[in-house]
């Protein structure tokens, strides 16, 4: 498990949007199936932007970008996040 996905997990844990246990949720599991609503997903984006000090360009602001921990991690790495920010 990459450190990026671990950080995403931490943000998901803080947000408390999911109805499933994060521990058992796989990196490729569908977050919307796990209870993330479209309203929550905006809060998730805000939390990610704040934690990683990035801005998602509009081209990435679609459902699929935030559908799993894996998808989020790959979007973040597209934005060239290497160093974890505390």
């Amino acid at each position, binding site marked *: 498990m990459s450190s990026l996905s671990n950080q995403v997990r931490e943000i998901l844990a803080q947000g408390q949007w999911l*109805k499933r246990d994060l521990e058992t949720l796989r990196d490729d599991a569908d977050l*919307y*199936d*796990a*209870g*993330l*609503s*479209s*309203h929550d997903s*905006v809060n998730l*984006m*805000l939390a990610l*932007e704040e934690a990683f000090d990035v*801005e*998602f*360009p*509009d*081209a990435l*602001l*679609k*459902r*699929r970008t935030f559908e799993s921990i894996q998808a989020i991690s790959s979007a973040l790495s597209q934005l060239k996040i290497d160093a974890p920010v505390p």
Partner: protein
Amino acid sequence: MSNFVERAHRVGREVASRHVDSVDRDARFPRESFDALRDERLLGMLMPRELGGESATIGDAVAVAHALGQYCSATGMIFAMHQIQAACLMRHGLSSEGLRSVASRVARDQLLLASATTETGVGGNVRESICAVQAKDHRFTIEKQASVISYGSHADGILATARRSPDAAASDQALAVLLAEDYTLEQTSGWDTLGMRGTCSNGYVLRAEAPLDRLLPLPYADISARTMLPITHLTWAGTWVGIVTDAVARARAYVRAEARKRGSAPPAAIRLAALVAGLEAMQGHLEAALARFERASDSPDKLTAMSFAVAMNALKTSTSTRAVELINEAMLICGINGYRNTGPYSLSRHLRDAYSAAIMVNNDRIMGNTSNYLLVLKDIPELNA
């Protein structure tokens, strides 16, 4: 004028306009209009030709709703709501055998489809459900407290949202395609309203049992973003612009008649110039949104982009608000003759019907969604973006 629009005007002129007063007064289903729409075979227009339809575009359906709205708002709105359901079936159901056969029945037998998204307990938040699909063997059941199902008891089928399974999250929904033989409706509330009276939007308990292959395979979240939301706002806006178009036509006829009587322009002529400009802007907004949908139509990525949802939401909130304002202007032009319930310049029904637009999924709820998107959306759209 397209062939579809010509057929719609024929139904409007020869049938809908003759019955509009009793449909409105008695809050009754516009049966004659729908018999005529079936005779013109307009209910199946969106379905592909090989299934017996006419492979019409969403733009064609919007144009028909716009034409019908000029004669009878309820006819236009019911047509719009039906085509939204037909579009979900056509765009997301044709790969499955069970749904393909429903689609071909919609085309060949001109079935009328209704919608049960609103639910007691979640209100207008159509992206959440309380009721759930209960699967057993090859069948499923749904029991939904549907607080509003327009023309529910006149429809041949209903598309209903429900949680995908009893343990699914509220937003993890599926869309079920139910035919009249699959369900019973127990009426729980009536429809004695200010306007849109002919939509007969009673409340019901919907109890259904159907084969599992009648669940659309795509999650409702995707169906909603790619089809339901944009096509709802486009076809509704088409109907509303149609209502305003007739109100403006009445104001224009009034000003012309006054001018002939006086031999010069009446004072209200200035207001009419502004009103016509307002209608042009409304129509332009609808056409631009339609063109935007058509550019995105085959791209799930473009359809699920936030900027696209913001544009479709803007069409809904702005058209619904402007409709009431413009009809009000038309009434000031026609004066007491606009205020009357009868006569060629009456605008009372138009105004009452238009008031439904802002609460038909409340504008505050829609602006709430948009404002949420704007917390992360950054780009300023270019012209023709």
